């Protein structure tokens, strides 16, 4: 992007397409050019750990799968042009400038990782066995420099002992100026250690050297505990002094242990957990765009509008907004889409193009002609299973007309090959033997559609997840692959074309919960032109935010809340229902009918989507003298005093905060995410009112993640004292002579310290009521901690597994106000993907009743969990395809054999069983 002119709704963006020197439209990704290229260049994608040619592709799954020429490395020999059958090389390709007209801009510019070259004490520059975490990711990858074998660069031997050093280029103002926490490194280091152990052949010893273990994401704390207790990953709390080479490529780490002593330990290999930073290029781009950056060069945003930059119409998501992990980035991406939708709602649909799909071929009367494609999946399958043998075996099976094996059957070029094979050999059934249909069936079905075949004429044999990955004997794995292919072919021959049915989507949305997240979702939906019914069980909007004082960025929560409530109440598209509860929900995606109750009066609401924003609460603890002494408060209670500007606060001489009250313990083994920041901020507020007050924070790990780390710095500079305690040795609270006494073992001295605070604040857990009733209404799941379970932690963080229902706020997991607002926007964006379609297609794999065989016994009506079967006016069962999930419960239960399940019908399953 060169420049941007204009304003929100009407930008002119000048973009430059850099030359690729190979025409992506002609390149088939076959790789012959690469095989002939004589040039040796550094493979940047693999972090310089191996070499590549000058005509290259970054990695096998790249989109588009077309090669490019690195002209800085190219010697101009002309070989690639000679060998390319597609005549794709374009040596005189040049820079292409164009101006695009857009209404809004989303910046997803990302970050670079810190380069540890200048940290002389870590010897990264001088020793090959000191690698960055990104280099180690490549080492672990099957498409990496060592094909996924755990080897160290120095001698290509398998390391037996690996150390991770945390906070390299993060939380560090001595070697660099990145004072913030990068928020992802603790979790990825644990993951790398666990995966490295599984790649090792010799019981790998792993140790993570860290300051605070920051596993504050959903289910992260459990992963940390499992890594420690089940996988035996060692965690060493310390400050690393230096990494020095010793004999045989090994490295000695000297570190300052928590008790102040210097210790040393030798490892075969050291991984530096490098953090994020905004690159120079991105800073320059931000300058061109005239958007403001914050103190750490991340895009400046506010808690109220977390994906909105300082320039109207320009939005931001991902790590350029602040250091964050994948779930948070994906969620923010949806939030940015929602914010864009608000700006562009008036012109929605004006530039839509409909996809041209060929009319499906009529295959009735044709004998089955099956094509079988066997995937190597790089070495994932091919490394164990003899893929060519499976391919040749498939050729011998009945009805098989065409067979092929592919390096990656899912790659873009293979889709073209499949399409060509379908057309050329008039295939009418396709079997892919590769990974799991759970992830890849839709992709191949699209290829069938493009080739003019009904998408249900497809079957997969799972020879990766359920074969090559779980069996190490090549012969037996190959035999199993053949069996699975034979079973799939037997079923495929009996497959029939099926038709998806269409259902209408009702316009409106129901948002359950009128807290910050629910209001954010409601406003986003309403501003995009959809009607919202917002229900709140209490008498006013706002939820927990009514009791909060400041956001972590220092904004006044009350102001944010008042603005949101005003906007909600003044928005003609939002109907607010206070003191209202949900009584019943009927229907399905696009067609919900819900009954709400207010003061004994029931009302029915029709809606297309629902957003669950029911929130969570603060734990009222039964320890540390809470409820027994008025000086012991929870965070929300202390915030109440701040909000009232209680004059007593100025008189506090000693304040103590205890962290992890009810969190990270066996009863509630999750981190409540917000409490460390909350305590640090409250400690600063007390210091502000009385700079001479002694303030202590008793913690287990300080988790002021991301830019919240600034508050931690500030608090230490202001003289707040941090004392670490172990969960086995928790502080004790008692009252003696009317004085509150807190005793804690000091982590440096190893001796008990007695504090006598005027105020003891407990950073209590965020607890979810675990709304079973709501979970049943929408057929969604709660996890063991009572939080709702999203469809996929990383890829679908605000969707439920049930279509048409979305999730945001504390009901998902503890989070801060800005995160709740972004998640509300994200849930709205996901809901709009359904609302904007007006009609949706539902799967053709449904049950149908043969009315002539139905004996009207009613078993199907009774057993169906989705209420799909009902008696029609002729008294026989009929199944609503929109409600049917294709589970087949009714089919197996039908005594008359009247129900069949398309796609999983009896003859098809029998064919699979009998093909032994």
């Amino acid at each position: 992007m060169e420049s941007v002119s204009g304003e929100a709704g009407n930008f002119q963006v000048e973009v430059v397409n850099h030359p690729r020197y190979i025409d992506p439209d002609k390149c088939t990704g076959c790789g012959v050019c690469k095989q002939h290229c004589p040039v040796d260049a550094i493979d940047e994608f693999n972090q310089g750990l191996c070499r590549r040619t000058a005509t290259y592709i970054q990695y096998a799954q790249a989109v588009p799968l077309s090669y490019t020429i690195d002209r800085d490395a190219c010697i101009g020999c002309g070989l690639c042009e000679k060998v390319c059958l597609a005549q794709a090389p374009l040596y005189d390709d040049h820079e292409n400038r164009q101006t695009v007209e857009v209404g809004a801009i989303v910046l997803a510019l990302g970050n670079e990782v810190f380069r540890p070259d200048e940290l002389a004490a870590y010897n990264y520059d001088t020793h090959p066995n000191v690698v960055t975490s990104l280099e180690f990711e490549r080492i672990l990858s099957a498409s990496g420099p060592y094909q996924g074998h755990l080897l160290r660069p120095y001698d290509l031997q398998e390391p037996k002992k690996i150390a991770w050093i945390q906070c390299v280029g993060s939380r560090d103002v001595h070697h660099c100026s990145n004072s913030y926490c990068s928020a992802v490194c603790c979790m990825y280091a644990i993951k790398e250690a666990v995966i490295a152990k599984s790649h090792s052949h010799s019981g790998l010893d792993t140790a993570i050297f860290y300051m605070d273990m920051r596993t504050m994401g959903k289910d992260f704390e459990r992963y940390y505990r499992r890594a420690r207790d089940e996988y035996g990953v060692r965690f060493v709390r310390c400050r690393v002094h230096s990494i020095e080479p010793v004999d045989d490529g090994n490295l000695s780490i000297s570190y300052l242990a928590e008790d102040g002593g210097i210790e040393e330990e030798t490892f075969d290999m050291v991984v530096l957990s490098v953090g994020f930073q905004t690159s120079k290029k991105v800073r320059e781009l931000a300058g061109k765009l005239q958007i403001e950056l914050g103190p750490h060069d991340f895009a400046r945003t506010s808690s109220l509008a977390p994906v909105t930059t300082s320039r109207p119409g320009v939005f931001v998501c991902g790590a350029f907004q602040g250091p964050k992990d994948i779930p948070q980035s994906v969620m923010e991406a949806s939030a940015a889409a929602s914010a864009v939708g608000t700006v562009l709602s008036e012109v929605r649909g004006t530039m839509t193009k409909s996809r041209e799909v060929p009319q499906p071929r009529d295959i009735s009367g044709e004998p089955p002609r099956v094509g079988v494609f066997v995937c190597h999946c790089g070495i994932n399958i091919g490394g164990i299973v003899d893929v060519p043998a499976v391919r040749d075996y498939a050729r011998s099976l009945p009805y098989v007309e065409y067979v092929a094996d592919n390096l990656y059957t899912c790659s873009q070029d293979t889709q073209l090959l499949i399409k060509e094979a379908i057309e050329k050999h008039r295939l009418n059934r396709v079997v892919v033997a590769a990974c799991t249909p759970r992830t890849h069936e839709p992709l191949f079905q699209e290829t069938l559609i493009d080739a003019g075949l009904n998408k249900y004429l497809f079957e997969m044999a799972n020879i990766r997840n359920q074969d090559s990955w779980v069996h190490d004997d090549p012969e037996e794995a190959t035999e199993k692959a053949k069996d699975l292919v034979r079973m799939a072919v037997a079923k495929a021959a009996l497959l029939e074309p099926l038709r998806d049915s269409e259902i209408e989507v009702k316009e409106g949305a129901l948002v359950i919960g009128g807290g910050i997240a629910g209001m954010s979702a409601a406003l986003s939906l309403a501003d995009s032109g959809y009607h919202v019914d917002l229900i709140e069980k209490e008498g006013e909007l706002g939820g927990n935010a009514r009791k909060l004082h400041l956001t972590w960025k220092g904004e006044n929560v009350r102001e944010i809340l008042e603005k949101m409530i005003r906007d909600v109440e003044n928005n003609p598209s939002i109907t607010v229902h206070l003191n209202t509860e949900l009584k019943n929900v009927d229907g399905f995606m696009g067609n919900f009918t819900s009954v709400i109750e207010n003061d004994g009066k029931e009302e029915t609401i029709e809606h297309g989507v629902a957003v669950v924003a029911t929130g969570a609460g603060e734990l009222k603890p039964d320890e540390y003298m809470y409820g027994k002494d008025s000086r012991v408060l929870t965070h929300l209670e202390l915030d109440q005093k701040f909000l009232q500007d209680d004059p007593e606060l100025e008189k506090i001489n000693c304040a103590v905060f205890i962290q992890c009250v009810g969190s990270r313990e066996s009863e509630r083994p999750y981190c409540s995410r917000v409490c460390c920041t909350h305590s640090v901020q409250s400690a600063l507020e007390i210091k502000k009112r009385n700079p001479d007050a002694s303030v202590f924070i008793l913690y287990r790990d300080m988790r002021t993640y991301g830019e919240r780390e600034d508050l931690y710095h500030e608090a230490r500079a202001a003289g707040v004292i941090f004392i670490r305690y172990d969960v086995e040795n928790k502080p004790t609270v008692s009252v003696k002579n009317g004085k509150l006494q807190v005793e804690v073992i000091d982590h440096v001295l190893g001796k008990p310290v007695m504090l006598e605070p005027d105020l003891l604040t407990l950073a209590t857990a965020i607890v979810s009521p675990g709304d079973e009733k709501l979970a049943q209404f929408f057929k969604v799941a709660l996890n063991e901690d009572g939080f709702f379970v999203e469809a996929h932690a990383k890829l679908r963080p605000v969707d439920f597994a049930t279509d048409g229902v979305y999730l945001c706020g504390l009901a998902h997991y503890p989070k801060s106000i800005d995160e709740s607002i972004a998640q509300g926007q994200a849930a709205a964006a996901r809901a709009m993907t359904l609302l904007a379609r007006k009609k949706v297609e539902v799967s053709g794999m449904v049950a149908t009743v043969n009315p002539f065989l139905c004996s009207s016994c009613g078993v199907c009506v009774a057993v169906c969990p989705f209420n799909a079967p009902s008696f029609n006016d002729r008294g026989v069962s009929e199944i609503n395809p929109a409600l049917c999930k294709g589970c087949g419960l009714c089919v197996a239960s039908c005594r008359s054999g009247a129900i069949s399940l398309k796609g999983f019908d009896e003859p098809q399953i029998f064919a699979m069983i009998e093909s032994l």
Partner: protein
Amino acid sequence: MSSDFEPRMLGFLCNWCAYAGADLAGVSRFQYPPTLRVIRVMCSGRVDPIFLAEALKAGYDAALVLG
């Protein structure tokens, strides 16, 4: 029965739980004997008892329903 008898098994696995679990076992590289063949169903409720009889008749030593 000899002690090295390895039964050949046919499993009917629910797409949403057991089949997903078998996929995850792969992702986690859990090794298990290669004597199980799998038929994916969208719900273990789909499995008609006759399928199990048919599996035994076809020559499998055991049939499993996982869901």
